[in-house]
């Protein structure tokens, strides 16, 4: 992925996010929740599917579905909700995939998640195919024929599958039984796929906030009642309908496949699948451009076990030390580390983090930066926040500094800035559900306010510290937070600024173990 493409992608995301945030607010921005919305839809499909499977009859597929559709009390909206949930699952999963791709989160340690995600969407589409065939209306027959044409190219069956729908003989109950079996089996496989999808995450977030979940289910239910999903006339192999209901979300491929020779359709489909599966390889950064994984300085590591707890990717474990100190030592698995830097913010003695981004590196850089000596309130922003939004806050007097992720920020940097003369320090992160480090805002809040390691020291005046969320489309909220924060700052004459260059790192952070040989 070229830098130009990357920058364009980020701009595009900010535009989309801004639009969604204006409508729903950043807390409810569905674009940030796409992955979890897909999971909610799977749950809705499970619940509605359980009802539908009990009223479905393989001996009378069209009749049983028609009876369900005609039942105004439960059947009609249950069936429609099932349909719309499957549509929204596909839409949400694709939105999630596009976001991950544009945020360059589709390769390296995230390869497994990408590959399993592609397979999940593919299985979801096949599952939708079996679902429409179950209904056995004119569209179900059309789908069955399209699928039959495709399967006839594959030398698997002794008789062409498509002949089964020619009308020579009635379609057997065995076909509908196998189809129903697949329709139940595939979601179970999707459950396994979902487990694989999040298997590399610590504390995977599978559901959106409760209000969003219920609001979404309510809206879909209302639409399912008001606009029941269409059901065509019962499948008749001797009918030539002028039109059939077509689901453009999950079955958009049908009109295309119908017009292409089956071999070409297979070729195009397999090429598309191969391209999707090759994304991690195609978008991989060159080695020199890759952010290096975190590393641990065993001399500084006290074995406190905080960084493994904070790592959102389960990339850190505690292992036995090689020396005679009685503690364990952290060990980073570079295959799992995405270089989010959250471990750097978790380490009181600042002994872990990506090269150049450990707490010590952050403090060192701040001391060396002569222009950093602050006199105005400082706003530390995540790199991923929109540049235009940062400019708006800069225009309101904020001295802007950036970090790759607010979870990477060591609390000692906040202390150092205040001790050096900043009247206040506010940290602006991304919306928590859109954090590239997954848990940056969460751990930042805990470290600043809840005494989570590495906590902001008690000696720091909390009135001079604040946090906000800087989201595209919701800059006004951050501006209001900033103005409130600045207005509430104590008078600067209470401060006793110390020259940055004279502030020793050990004066800020926890001292390393007495027996450790440290080069500051």
């Amino acid at each position, binding site marked *: 992925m070229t830098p130009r493409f990357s920058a364009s992608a980020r701009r595009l995301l900010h535009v989309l996010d801004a639009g969604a945030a204006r*409508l*729903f*607010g950043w807390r*409810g921005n569905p674009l940030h929740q796409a992955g979890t919305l897909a999971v909610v839809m799977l749950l809705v499909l499970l619940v509605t599917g359980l009802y539908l499977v009990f009223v479905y009859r393989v001996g009378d597929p069209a009749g049983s579905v028609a009876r369900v559709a005609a039942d105004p009390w439960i059947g009609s909206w249950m069936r*429609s909700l099932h*349909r*719309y949930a499957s*549509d*929204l699952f596909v*839409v949400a999963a694709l939105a999630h995939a596009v976001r991950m791709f544009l945020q360059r989160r589709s390769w390296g340690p995230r390869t497994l998640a990408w590959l399993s995600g592609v397979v999940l969407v593919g299985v979801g589409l096949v599952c939708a195919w079996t679902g429409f065939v179950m209904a056995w209306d004119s569209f179900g027959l*059309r789908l069955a024929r399209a699928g039959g044409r495709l399967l006839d190219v594959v030398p698997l069956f002794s*008789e*062409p599958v*498509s*002949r089964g729908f*020619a*009308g*020579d003989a009635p379609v057997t109950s065995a076909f509908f039984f196998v189809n129903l079996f697949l329709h139940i089996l595939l979601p179970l496989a999707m459950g396994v796929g979902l487990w694989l999808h999040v298997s590399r995450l610590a504390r995977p977030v599978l559901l959106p906030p409760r209000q969003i979940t219920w*609001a*979404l289910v309510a*809206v*879909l239910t*209302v*639409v*399912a009642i008001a*606009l029941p*999903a*269409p059901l065509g006339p019962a499948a*008749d*192999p*001797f*009918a*030539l*309908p*002028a*039109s*059939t*209901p*077509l*689901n*453009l*979300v999950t079955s958009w491929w049908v*009109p295309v496949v119908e017009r292409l020779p089956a071999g070409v359709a297979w070729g195009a489909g397999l090429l598309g699948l191969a391209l999707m599966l090759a994304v991690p390889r195609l978008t991989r950064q060159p080695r020199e451009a890759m952010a290096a994984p975190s590393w641990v300085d065993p001399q500084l590591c006290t074995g406190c076990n905080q960084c493994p707890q904070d790592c959102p990717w389960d990339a850190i474990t505690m292992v036995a030390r090689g020396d005679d100190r009685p503690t364990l030592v952290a060990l980073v698995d570079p295959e799992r580390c995405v270089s989010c830097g959250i471990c750097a913010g978790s380490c009181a003695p600042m002994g872990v983090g990506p090269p150049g981004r450990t707490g010590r590196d952050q403090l060192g850089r701040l001391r060396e930066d002569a222009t950093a000596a602050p006199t105005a309130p400082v706003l530390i922003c995540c790199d991923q926040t929109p540049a235009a939004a940062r400019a708006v806050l800069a225009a309101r007097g904020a001295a802007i500094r950036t970090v790759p992720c607010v979870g990477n920020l060591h609390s000692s940097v906040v202390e150092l800035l205040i001790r050096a003369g900043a009247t206040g320090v506010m940290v602006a992160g991304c919306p928590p559900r859109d954090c590239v480090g997954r848990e940056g805002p969460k751990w930042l809040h805990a470290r600043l306010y809840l005494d989570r390691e590495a906590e902001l020291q008690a000696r720091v005046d909390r009135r001079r510290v604040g946090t906000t969320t800087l989201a595209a489309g919701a800059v006004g909220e951050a501006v209001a937070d900033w103005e409130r924060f600045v207005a509430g700052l104590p008078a600067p004459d209470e401060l006793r600024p110390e020259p940055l260059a004279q502030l020793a790192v050990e004066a800020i952070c926890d001292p390393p173990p007495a027996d450790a040989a440290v080069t500051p």
Partner: protein
Amino acid sequence: VTPGRALGATAAAGAAAVALALLSGIAWPVTRAEEAALRLSLRARPERLETCRTPSAEELAALAEHMRQRTVCEGFTASYRLRVVVDGHLLADIVAQGGGLRRDRPLQLLQDHPIPAGSHRLQVTLDRREVADAGTAGPSTAPPASAPAVTVDTGRYAGRAGREADERDRRRRATLPAALALDTTLTIAPGRVALISFDSETRSLAVRTPAAP
């Protein structure tokens, strides 16, 4: 969350859900209203064109007892030409062969051809393409003239020659005849499909025009 934003968010979510519902079931045109179709649907075993001979006593003696076929046939599987003429116009002219790499599996044909609704004169012919030459004939139905004296079947092999002949006859009856023809008047309603298939019971081409439900 202000009431205005909540209202706006609800409206936006509702609009998105309605759009999703509409995309979920748009009416997609498939055929023109006045159109009908002729479906050619054949599934039958193609004929084997074989040359049969009676092996000599020496040949049979060289084989294990259970492999001593009284008639040995070698040959190939026939292919067919299907021509469909509607109102004097050629609608389809298809060469059909058996399935499988050796073309010895059942012949499968499934094609839909649009035709205008109404009454039509329909002429369908199915002809074997290969002509049986003097040395080639269809499977023999007659039992071998005489079984060599050294291989008189006894015990469990008693009557083998007759069983072989029965089996060949059964296979022959299951294959497509060398020539079939259908000449009829077909009346088909708009939006309906007429099915032309091979009826294995009567060994003839048949046309079905199911009435609209």
